[in-house]
């Protein structure tokens, strides 16, 4: 009734009322379920909140944290955020604990005029007196970015191959299935080690992400393919095919909406897996040495024996960030579980 009326010229008041009602319906159908889903799945909200807080911290930190203050190595022209990237040789061995930490002064002796002010080095410095707060601020987006690129690419490749396999069946399906079966049983990290050593050059963050996707897409492909195979036998897909819908239209209009939960779940899983693998690769010494990503920090921590040196600030802060990333991704995927697996809904 409202729809018929809206075509005619109506008073402003009626229009507002109609718009409000339409928004109400939209809210009830689209927005409300999201909120109620969130209420039933606190882990999704907590996970998203943790990840959001980490990003917020990074962005605010990068905006606020000094671009002009001199670096302790004396290169006054360097902003602190660039201190790691410009990769200068060690000038002095002044490893400073976090400057707010009044009880850990005794690790190095400082001249009176060198005493940093209270929040000059919130996370201390490493053995080459590089500012670790700046390093971590740079590292979080690099590490997350690697995971994001890898996740997007592997879900993209995985979905396309899954559709090709399910659509053409026959030989392409057999080939793709064999490839995924084989790929799943070969640890991607090991293949990446070989690739990286043979390339000889250091991989920057997005190249690393692409490399991880090249070995990680098999997992997405397998998840999505099994779902596509189930969906294509569904009556409504059959009806769409009988009524002459084109293949692409069936894929995007009929099947995609039902696949999105699986694709999302597989995306989150592959982001987490890729970040895990990228940190592992970097910790083995195969990362980009000029980049301050979290994994490279772990590598330097192991290389310089930060634990035995008692430099807890060097490994504790990156560790906390890495744990936040993994726990939040895990919570998100646990929260999405109910969406992709409606059988769990009874229990939730």
């Amino acid at each position, binding site marked *: 009734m409202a729809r018929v009326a809206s075509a005619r010229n109506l008073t402003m008041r009626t229009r507002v009322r109609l718009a409000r009602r339409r928004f109400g319906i939209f809210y009830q159908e689209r927005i409300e379920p999201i909120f109620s889903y969130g209420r039933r799945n606190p882990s999704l909200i907590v996970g998203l909140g943790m990840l959001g807080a980490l990003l917020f911290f990074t962005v605010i930190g990068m905006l606020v944290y000094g671009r002009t203050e001199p670096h302790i190595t004396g290169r006054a022209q360097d902003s602190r955020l660039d201190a790691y990237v410009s990769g200068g040789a060690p000038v002095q061995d002044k490893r400073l604990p976090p400057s707010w930490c009044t009880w850990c002064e005794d690790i190095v002796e400082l001249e009176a005029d060198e005493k940093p002010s209270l929040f000059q080095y919130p996370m201390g410095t490493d053995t080459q007196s590089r500012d670790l707060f700046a390093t971590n601020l740079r590292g979080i987006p690099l590490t997350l970015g690697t995971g994001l690129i890898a996740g997007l690419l592997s879900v993209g490749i995985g979905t396309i191959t899954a559709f090709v396999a399910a659509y053409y069946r026959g030989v392409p399906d057999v080939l793709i299935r064999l490839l995924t079966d084989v790929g799943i049983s070969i640890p991607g990290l090991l293949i990446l080690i070989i690739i990286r050593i043979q390339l000889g050059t250091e991989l920057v963050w997005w190249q690393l992400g692409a490399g991880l996707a090249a070995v990680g897409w098999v997992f997405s492909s397998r998840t999505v393919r099994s779902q596509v195979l189930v969906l294509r036998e569904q009556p409504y897909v059959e009806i769409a095919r009988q009524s002459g819908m084109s293949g692409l239209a069936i894929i995007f209009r009929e099947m995609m909406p039902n696949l999105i939960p699986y694709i999302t779940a597989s995306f989150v899983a592959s982001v987490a897996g890729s970040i895990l693998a990228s940190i592992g690769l970097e*910790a083995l010494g195969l990362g980009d040495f000029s980049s301050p990503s979290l994994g490279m920090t772990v590598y330097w921590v192991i290389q310089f024996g930060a634990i035995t040196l008692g430099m807890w600030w060097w490994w504790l802060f990156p560790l906390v960030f890495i744990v936040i990333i993994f726990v939040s991704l895990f919570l998100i995927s646990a929260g999405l579980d109910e969406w992709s697996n409606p059988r769990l809904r009874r229990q939730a």
Partner: protein
Amino acid sequence: MTTSDNAPSTRARSVANARPVPVISFVSAFFSNFIVQRFLLFLLTVWVAATVIFVLPRLTGQDPVKEKLLLEAQRGGSVQAGMNEMAKEYSSRLGLDLPIYEQYVNYMTDLAQLDFGYSIAYFPRTVNEIIADSIIWSIGLMTVTLTLGFVLGTGAGALLGWSRSPGWLSYAFMPLLTLSAIPQYMLGLVLMFIFAIMLNLLPFFGAYSPGNLPEWSLGFILDVLKHSILPALSILFSAVGFWAIGMRGMMINTQGEDFMVQADAKGLNGARIFVRYAIRNALLPQVTGLAISFGTLLTGAVLVEVLFQFPGLGNTLFYAIRVSDFFQITGIVMTIIISLALATMVIDLVYPLIDPRVKYTQN
């Protein structure tokens, strides 16, 4: 992978071969046999991995021998004259100057005999000797931690998912969940700091005290055990969390099944329902998960070994990477890939023993 996947095709085949020539029917029956198929997949996996490892270096056009020599020359500061001759000599000794297909055939024959050639960094020694020295440590560490992790984790998950467990148990879920999300080597860092540095209770590197020589004596074994506690714990913690979460989910699902209601209605006692009905059925996906997650657990353990300088395969791989000893890296990577593929195959093959509903025989 399961029978439901290939059942239609075998049925079609058996109809087509209703009155077949005996030899052909034997061949088709042979290749439709699950055990044979699974073994072929194992061979294919190893072959693909080996080929990728063979092809990649040749695509990038790098010369591992020459690079290694250059690196040595830079380190030792020796003159670089005669470097090319030396590289050529090494190349011909290692068979790197042959045409590419001959190299491939040689490589595959060597691989079939599990012979990975000489190490570049420790030249007179073969890669096999180096691997043999270190693999025993890895096998010991991995067997204990993976078995314990699976048993403890599955047990904890079963209790967590069981609706009649005491209420306080549910508080253990969040810590377990967090543990499973933390990479093993990160946990290792924390454990190392707490137990080796702060409390000074346990040694923080190596597998035995320096100065001790490996021997079969009680003192040495105790020493090894003391050194293995921290690396083992850091693998164990995350493994327990991983299995507990999977098992908990499966237990919750299983309790919704009709046979559970029936078992309850029959008046069976709780312990029997728990063990014989709930765990028995919830365990099955865990075993399948074991096959899939083996690789992740193993690569995580590689890094734990590096962190604790535990002299296993992972640590050897790390040092091979540092001195860019390509043959050693290839050997270790192939060893890990083959043992993984073997382990997954064994799990797949023994699966019907655990789940009688899955049968790999033809009818």
